[in-house]
């Protein structure tokens, strides 16, 4: 993965962005015999309400695409392995980890990131609640926490403290701001009704 990090994230994505017609830079081996077509794929999707078209290597994740190609850096990369939840976004209204979602699978999809949650200048009730209730310390996990919480409340799975804790367990907070996070979700749950 270091290779992917080093070349794809910082280099390849940027390169593809500036020189759309450039041939794909071959990374790593693949099988020598019968080379399949590893060319780029074009994906048309809606991101935070805006129609977007991206052409990228099929290995690119939704996480890298929103951060590096679309400049939406609110979505965080913690583990890149589905284990921390920092990269949580909504695809077609459902919470997913963007680090394990391939961009190539999203043709026709609608994606919402933390940047798309607020209503113009009016923060989302969860954003306000996280501030009101001290739902964060360093803030690194917060966009993922908020995106998860928004889906959990919408699904009607935030009825009790135990249910909130269980439903939010895919979002790890290294600063252990859990009591504040729980309080924030309780507050927003009432406002979002």
């Amino acid at each position: 993965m270091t290779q992917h990090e080093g070349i794809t994230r910082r280099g390849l994505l940027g390169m593809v962005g500036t020189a759309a017609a450039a041939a794909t830079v071959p990374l790593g081996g693949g099988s020598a015999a019968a080379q399949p077509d590893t060319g780029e794929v074009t994906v048309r999707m809606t991101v935070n309400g805006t129609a977007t078209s991206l052409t990228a290597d099929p290995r690119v994740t939704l996480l890298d695409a929103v951060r590096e190609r679309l400049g939406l850096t609110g979505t965080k990369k913690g583990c890149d392995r589905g284990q921390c939840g920092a990269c949580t976004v909504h695809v077609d209204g459902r919470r997913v980890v963007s680090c394990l979602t391939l961009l190539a699978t999203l043709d026709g999809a609608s994606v919402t990131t933390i940047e798309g949650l607020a209503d113009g200048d009016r923060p989302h009730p969860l954003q306000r609640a996280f501030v009101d209730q001290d739902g964060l310390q360093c803030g690194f996990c917060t966009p993922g926490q908020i995106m998860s919480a928004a889906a959990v409340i919408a699904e009607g799975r935030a009825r009790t403290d135990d249910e909130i804790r269980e439903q939010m367990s895919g979002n790890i907070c290294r600063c252990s701001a859990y009591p504040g996070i729980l309080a924030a979700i309780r507050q927003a749950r009432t406002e979002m009704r």
Partner: protein
Amino acid sequence: MRSYAFERPGTVTDAVRRAGSGSAFLAGGTTLVDLMKLEVMTPDRVLDINRLPLRGLDTTGGGLRIGALERMSDVAADPRVRRAYPVLGQALDLSASGQLRTMASIGGNLLQRTRCGYFRDVSTPCNKRLPGSGCPAIGGENRTHAVLGASGSCAATHPSDLAVALVALDAKVRLQGREGARTVDLRDFYLLPGDTPHLEHDLRPGELVTEVVVPALPWARRSTYVKIRDRRSFEFALSSAAVAVRLDGDTIVEARVAVGGMGTRPWRLTAVERALVGRRATEETYVAAAATAVEGTRPLRHNAYKPELMKRTLVRALLELEQTR
């Protein structure tokens, strides 16, 4: 990550036709993308099967049929599943995280790979990942490894919670290959490691799982799944138990018992079932029956706690079932 060609077949026939030994089907991607990043899996073609019509839950004619591409969270939330097979809903609810359950498919869940740390680390040998390279787990870190079904070549556990519940329910998988369709008992679908731990299941190259079929079992309304792990949520099982019991008055007349976290594949415990049947549903009965579960276990250096934990997990599951009488 190695490069690959990305294709989106539109029909089952098309998907199966394109598939071969170097290809991988992509459903939710929560195993495949993870393992491609680690270069544990290096397909040269990724076939995104999400456009295939392998969706839906069907209860007509008794039993339950689940399309392979149904998502874990949707199946868990379905009232028909919750009512008729609580053990399934609970096994799914207790798996992974909310985000992962939203993404992950039923078919992919059954085909997820072991979480053995050596398997996931390409800088170490591993017979499952690289046949013949050796098994560092057997003489190394093996706290989470199997006490049932292991060989001298591999002691990795099968990580799926869902599979444990399905094995208890005698579920079958429908498979579709180029040569046609066939149905296999999930219990026989998973292979013991033996000398060939890289062969994990009875799926021919390019074959697709299309459906999971759960036979009708009216008394599975009294069933439950108990999962013991290092933390309370979002963790794989150290131990788990899927149990269903049919009572006549106070007497157990039929039972289904399977455990997870213990075996190299989801492990059905027919000896425990036999030890339950014909006896009164009391804690004494459960303890005596659970004791038969540890026969044949072979602990390694760091997992000697597992047989005892298995017994206790079974007893707890059977006691919890009493609450639902």
